[in-house]
């Protein structure tokens, strides 16, 4: 089994989809000649030609909107916006047209929108956001947040197959930092199924994206102190694996939700509310959230470090929770 970085896994998966199904095409800024701002689509233009690897103008609305139109005509666009931060430019289209199309008109919109998200490299306020939460609020969209190379490839295949608009948040800080064995052949990873990143008994951490690794490091520290931490990687937020979370909470009775997105109305708030509703009698402590503070993402390294949840933040929150 070959070892791939997170980015290579996405690229490999995308290439496989395009080879497998000629309806699949890629569209976005700088995806063709340049090979993608992050080099995900290097070699694609040469292999698939200019009408399957389309260099779009700087027009998020046109990119998202024409992807919808093409999907309505039976193609399978995998469009991309260069940074997840720019999804706000296409927000209207996604929420108004793409999300509601099937419900109100019966016509599915099988589109995938790749969104490089996340911070940690001094990208500043407009290149570092994790804007998944507002979309979880919109019925009709699906939200995917892979953390591992294996999941990145498998979830992308599922996204292409899915007849609904899928927002695929790939964490750019994981692109080259995370490597793992990834199957060569095509495979899918189901939406709505969490992955146990690490099993434990004393406290549950629910998280996704790059924060999975932060949680894992914190759990390692706590293992040395005799505390057993269970980490659930949700992998997808819409749909999300509520059942797995409830089962884990029934086991440990202590829940920490961790996300890189800002705290207020981050998706952790929804998880906390639902767990409090459905697992109240299993709780041995209040549900805790560790998230970024409610500020725009700062640029300078010490500020950014204070913004993004660090291993220490997670470890001390876990200790508090365990001691409660």
């Amino acid at each position, binding site marked *: 089994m070959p070892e791939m970085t997170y980015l290579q896994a996405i690229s490999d998966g995308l290439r496989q989809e395009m080879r497998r199904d000629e309806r699949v095409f890629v569209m976005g800024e700088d995806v063709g000649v340049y090979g993608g701002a992050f080099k995900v689509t290097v070699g694609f233009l040469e292999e698939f030609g200019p009408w399957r690897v389309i260099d779009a103008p700087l027009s998020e609305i*046109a990119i998202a*909107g024409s992807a919808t*139109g093409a999907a309505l*005509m039976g193609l399978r666009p995998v469009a991309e916006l260069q940074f997840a931060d720019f999804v706000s430019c296409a927000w209207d*289209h996604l929420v108004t047209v793409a999300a509601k199309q099937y419900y109100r008109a019966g016509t599915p919109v099988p589109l995938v929108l790749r969104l490089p998200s996340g911070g940690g490299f001094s990208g500043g306020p407009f290149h570092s956001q994790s804007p998944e939460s507002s979309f979880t609020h919109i019925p009709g969209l699906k939200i995917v947040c892979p953390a591992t190379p294996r999941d990145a490839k498998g979830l992308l295949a599922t996204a292409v197959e899915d007849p609904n608009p899928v927002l695929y948040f790939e964490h750019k800080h994981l692109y080259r930092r995370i490597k793992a064995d990834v199957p060569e052949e095509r495979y899918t990873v189901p939406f709505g199924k969490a992955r146990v990143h690490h099993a434990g008994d004393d406290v549950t951490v629910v998280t996704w994206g790059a924060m999975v690794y932060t949680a894992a490091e914190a759990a390692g520290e706590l293992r040395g102190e005799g505390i057993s931490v269970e980490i659930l990687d949700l992998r997808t937020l819409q749909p999300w694996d509520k059942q797995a979370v409830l089962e884990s909470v029934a086991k440990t009775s202590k829940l920490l939700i961790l996300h890189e997105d800002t705290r207020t109305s981050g998706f952790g708030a929804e998880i906390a509310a639902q767990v409090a509703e459905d697992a109240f009698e299993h709780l041995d402590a209040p549900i805790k959230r560790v998230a970024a503070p409610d500020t725009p993402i700062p640029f300078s390294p010490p500020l950014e470090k204070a913004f993004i949840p660090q291993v220490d933040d997670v470890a001390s929150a876990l200790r508090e929770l365990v001691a409660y």
Partner: protein
Amino acid sequence: MAIARDTEPLGSSFEIGELGLGRAELLGMYRNMLITRGIEERGHILYKQGKIPGSFFTGRGNEAASVGVATAMRPEDGGTPLHRDMGVHVTRGVEPWRIFAQYMGRVDGPARGRDGNVHLALVEQNLIAMVSHLPAMMPVAVGLGLAFRIRNEPRVSVCWYGDGAAARGDAHEAMNFAGVRRLPVVFVCDNNQYAYSTPPQFEYACANLADRAAGYGFEGIVVDGTDILAVYEQAKRAIEKAREGGGPTLIECVTFRMEGHAVHDDAFYVPSELFQEWSKRDPIGRFGLWLSEHAQLDETEQSEIENEVKALLSEAQQRAEASPMPDPAELEQGVYAESTEAPGGTDA
């Protein structure tokens, strides 16, 4: 300075013959205009009787522009008509009873009660139902053209928008992208000269909206939107040009919005002289007159056609009223598609 090319009004039946329109086709177009207006007049009554919930929009005065363009489309062509373009749906063959059912929120409306008024389309006809955020459908229409281009299909996407919607960024991005990639899209601007209560001088600064086409690298044309034959001629030309790879065209159909923005609006802000002036150019009246002069349409035949339309619409209304209301128990179904093979799915 207007740089769009104004079109010449058509005249003789010989010229019409050049367009490939025989008497049958011409009478068919006339009938479609009558059906369009008849639906909307009847809809007014139903709305005031409380049988149509929500709001009610018409395209009174736009019948020539909508029927004219739609007649120039082939069945395999597609597009995104708006709320003044009921004539497009009628011409493409949506049955009137289903339009009434749509207005009344019944399950037999194309939106099955989940969306209202003119937010309807039959995807089998390659038409995509509009949304309220105008012109959000423009990039989508461009996407249709993109699909045709990717698959090298000789099909054209027709995109409608209005003088108000033209001010939003979606219009710019859509036309720019279409121009850059020379996509087979025809942009039809229904310029009925009022966007709710906003007249043109507060909506756009260029002389004609068609002037903007040059900015996107393609041709812009202004046409008398009340002259169905002129509209048909320009639409046919632009559509075939696009089909042959000639890229987009912008056709600005100049008409007048003969009623308020919607039924609740009495358009007090419109100088009454404008209504008087434009009512003389009523598209149905104009075409009827032309037909009597050039196609031997006598009063008897005219009455026959009118009565037939009335009977059709009366029966359509009854049939629509018999269609059931949607079941609230089904409210949460259908947020997500299970497959593109579902009815309405466009798996090609």
